[in-house]
């Protein structure tokens, strides 16, 4: 199956599908196991101009929804030395530098990630990307799995260092619906 269901001229703006758009973070716990938390659904839109090989992504990430499976850990994650959700209920990812592969699929998005009010560059790599004509929605849906790494200390989220790792692996599921 080609990466694109159909060629579309000019920029197209897709709305993120809240049922299939989540950020999972992964961080090492005592160099032993991987602690995970899910944040979302993520809100936002993405504009892709395949002819110009350009794109623009604006995500609003409600960190108040953080869910680790443990209520105690969720409460701890929301405190001021970690996600600081009362002061900063949203994280943001704004990316305007898109790389496309030979078949026109998105390969990489680079932009700025804002967490706890601190902005740092972030690059997300596509592990998979495809577009399809969705049978139920009767619209084109594009999306994939993206991942990237950030250092939480750069954003001031320092609790538990170094026993809980500084490198945070972001695993992003995203699907977005064409108009």
């Amino acid at each position, binding site marked *: 199956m080609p990466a694109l269901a159909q060629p579309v001229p000019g920029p197209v703006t897709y709305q993120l599908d809240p049922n299939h758009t989540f950020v999972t973070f992964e961080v090492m716990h005592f160099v032993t196991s991987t602690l995970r938390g899910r944040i979302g659904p993520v809100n936002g839109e993405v504009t892709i101009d395949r002819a110009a090989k350009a794109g623009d992504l604006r995500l609003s990430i409600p960190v108040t929804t953080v*869910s680790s499976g443990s209520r105690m850990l969720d409460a701890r994650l929301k405190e001021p030395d970690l996600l600081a959700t009362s002061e900063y209920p949203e994280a943001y990812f704004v990316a305007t530098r898109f790389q496309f592969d030979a078949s026109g699929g998105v390969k990489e998005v680079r932009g700025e990630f804002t967490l706890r009010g601190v902005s740092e560059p972030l690059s997300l790599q596509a592990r*998979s990307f495809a577009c399809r004509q969705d049978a139920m929605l009767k619209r084109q849906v594009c999306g994939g799995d993206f991942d990237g790494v950030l250092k939480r200390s750069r954003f001031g989220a320092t609790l538990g260092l170094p026993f809980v790792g500084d490198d945070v692996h972001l695993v992003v599921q995203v699907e977005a619906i064409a108009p």
Partner: protein
Amino acid sequence: MTKFSLLAVAAALGFAASAHAESATYAIEPSHSFATFEIGHFGTSTNRGRFNKTSGTVTLDKAAKTGALDVTVDTTSLDTGTAAFTKHISSEEILNVAANPTAKLVATKFVFNGDKVAEIDGNLTLNGKTNPVVLKAQNFNCYMNPMVKREVCGGDFDATIVRSQYGVSYGLNYGFPDNVHLVIQVEAVKQ
């Protein structure tokens, strides 16, 4: 060899001998033990679901390089982040958690690589059906936990299962994959 060093060697051998016979029991720590499934969605992205409640015990003999485990996952604790998706997967059509509120992993064969667990061969019971499963360790380590002041052993394990072998065949004809990737975080506290 001096008398002192002979004693030291004897003590070391004695310690090794006693360590060799030592099998310890570890209790699963529920706030650091979760099973997550990953399944492809129309060749586009990956859908995930996490079971929030896991319990059980692991026995580990690090000297003899043997182990066993008996772990229960509460399938009613499924959490996907989307209420409708959680409800559908829990329904009779898919996991039927009302009839099968638990999944079980029982294993008596641990494969070691050096002093670390590398693989666990066991049987997974899901949706009332049991099949052999091999869990591969992506990480394994033991450490002294400063909060519980006990040894904690754990890691990350994964396996790919074929869901139709467990009678979970919903949507195969619509193109939902048969392969499901299980991603397991586990930590267990020495008793």
